[in-house]
């Protein structure tokens, strides 16, 4: 007996909606969107930080706790088998979602951050040595900078950084110049959380592979906004978090090509990840189990699988088209505001609008619009080097999700007028 949503099939009973993308009926799937904030309807525009959860996700998790919860891969009893099946079905669901060749290439982790740390630590320890080079970009999230700095400090490898230009795009000539036969790994973001830039990952993978370097892609912001196929991209590792994809927090995915994972040592030691332990030595389990030490987040992957079903039912191309429309609408509307400067104007951009209002600090904007019910992010977005590049201490960011509407963007623009009113 499995959850009635049945993660293995996409032709589930969720297929009740008409084909047209009806954002108002979609909103009804998200209980929190009915909340009020400071007496105003909630306008949630902080989706790049984390997204809200549809009922389908809440119910799948609730159902699993009620009917199929036990520890996984351990018990011989029925309940444990049921939980194990739900957990492993979720793995297969993720595999299909990102186009991986084999479910064993899907490692469940805590999130993007842990996925990158796993690769830096495990792949890095065995493949990256003094004199080798790691190539990242100037637009990385701190989670794709610091793990490589730790590795650099342990190994004596060099960390090189490919610059961005004034529109927030990667400077390809510079990237090409920095890539060389000493480069062991290229680690870059698919979609920048601070700028919205979509990087030409497929081309970068071709260039890196031609030099013999492996490629890790930070897909935290990409997976919620567009169709991702890891085999088509050709990357070696791909990392993302469930919580930005309308799934629960505390679970994420590391995709790794099987032969690479199979050659990597464990990241953490403990139960589950071994075949046999004596005090002399331990034999490690095969991937992905080798990388899932201890009791994992058992119900998280079930929620993630339900979220994947949900977005696939809406259609990632439809979601992308809807969000592109919102971004275009918001970009045009904000252009009329005096003192507005958009940070990040890449030709290919996801639904992220980072900006500066002349003379007004992002924190003041954040607090004042919050009073209008509008949730924005103000700060450095864990991308301090990007802030340094554009010579700002922080930006304000609106990020749009599959449930946002043009009316909400109108409310957002009105709240920015309010900011001017209050602070002049």
């Amino acid at each position: 007996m499995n959850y009635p949503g049945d993660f293995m099939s996409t032709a589930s009973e969720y297929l009740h909606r008409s084909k047209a993308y009806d954002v108002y009926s979609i909103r009804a799937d998200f209980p929190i969107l009915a909340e009020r904030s400071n007496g105003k309807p909630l306008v949630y525009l902080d989706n790049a930080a984390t997204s809200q959860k549809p009922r389908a996700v809440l119910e799948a998790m609730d159902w699993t706790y009620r009917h199929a919860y036990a520890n996984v891969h351990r018990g011989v009893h029925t309940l444990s088998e049921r939980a194990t099946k739900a957990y492993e079905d979720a793995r297969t669901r993720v595999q299909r979602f990102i186009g991986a060749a084999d479910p064993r290439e899907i490692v469940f982790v805590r999130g993007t951050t842990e996925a990158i740390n796993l690769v830096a630590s495990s792949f890095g320890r065995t493949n990256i040595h003094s004199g080798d080079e790691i190539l990242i970009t100037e637009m990385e999230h701190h989670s794709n900078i610091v793990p490589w700095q730790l590795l650099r400090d342990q190994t004596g490898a060099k960390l090189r950084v490919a610059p961005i230009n004034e529109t927030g795009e990667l400077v390809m000539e510079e990237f090409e110049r920095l890539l060389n036969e000493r480069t062991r790994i290229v680690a870059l973001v698919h979609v920048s959380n601070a700028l919205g830039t979509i990087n030409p990952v497929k081309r970068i993978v071709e260039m890196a592979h031609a030099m013999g370097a492996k490629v890790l892609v930070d897909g935290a912001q990409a997976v919620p906004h567009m169709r991702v196929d890891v085999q088509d991209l050709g990357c070696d590792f791909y990392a993302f978090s469930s919580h930005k994809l309308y799934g629960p927090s505390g679970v994420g995915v590391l995709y790794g090509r099987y032969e690479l994972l199979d050659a990597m040592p464990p990241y953490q030691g403990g139960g589950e990840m071994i075949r046999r332990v004596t005090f002399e030595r331990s034999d490690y389990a095969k991937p992905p189990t080798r990388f899932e030490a201890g009791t994992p987040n058992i119900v998280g992957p079930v929620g993630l699988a339900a979220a994947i079903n949900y977005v696939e039912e809406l259609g990632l191309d439809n979601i992308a088209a809807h969000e592109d429309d919102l971004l275009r609408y918001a970009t045009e509307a904000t252009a009329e505001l005096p003192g507005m400067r958009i940070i990040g104007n890449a030709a290919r951009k996801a639904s992220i609008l980072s900006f500066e209002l002349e003379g007004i600090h992002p924190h003041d904007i954040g607090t004042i619009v919050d009073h209008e019910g509008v949730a924005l992010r103000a700060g450095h977005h864990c991308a301090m080097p990007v802030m340094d590049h554009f010579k700002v201490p922080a930006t304000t960011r609106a990020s749009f999700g599959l449930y946002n509407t043009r009316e909400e963007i109108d409310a957002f623009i009105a709240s920015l007028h309010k900011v001017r009113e209050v602070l002049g």
Partner: protein
Amino acid sequence: MSDLRALYQEVIAEHNKNPRNFRWMEDANRMAVGVNPLCGDKLTVYMKVDEQGIVRDVSFEGSGCAISVSSASIMTQMLKGKKVEEAERLFNAFHEAVTKDDPQSDLEALGKIAVLAGVRAYPSRVKCATLSWHTMHAALEGEEWVSTE
């Protein structure tokens, strides 16, 4: 809305636009830099304290949000001519007023800085309001750097 009005009063907006004593002080004998790593705000507070322990001059420089700039601006106005002990007393009273669950200090004793007491309702913004005060306190203690983290 009433809370927000309480926070962003005209006084605050006005100090933000025209901060008082916003300058470098060449002959300062106390100085400290305060940073809020969370938002990147950075203020330098300069003071001139005479042998009697009286704050003869105080100024600041840096960048920050309306709350931190107006708080610093008002602070410099308040402290000029005060004894060091009085500056420390005001620092403690203000700090308590915006951080304690049930503050003992009454608003009147806070003087002009009472306009910022409303920041209590915004936990994420309390550090903005207290940054310049922490920095001033550090300068008096002889520390040159202070971080709100």
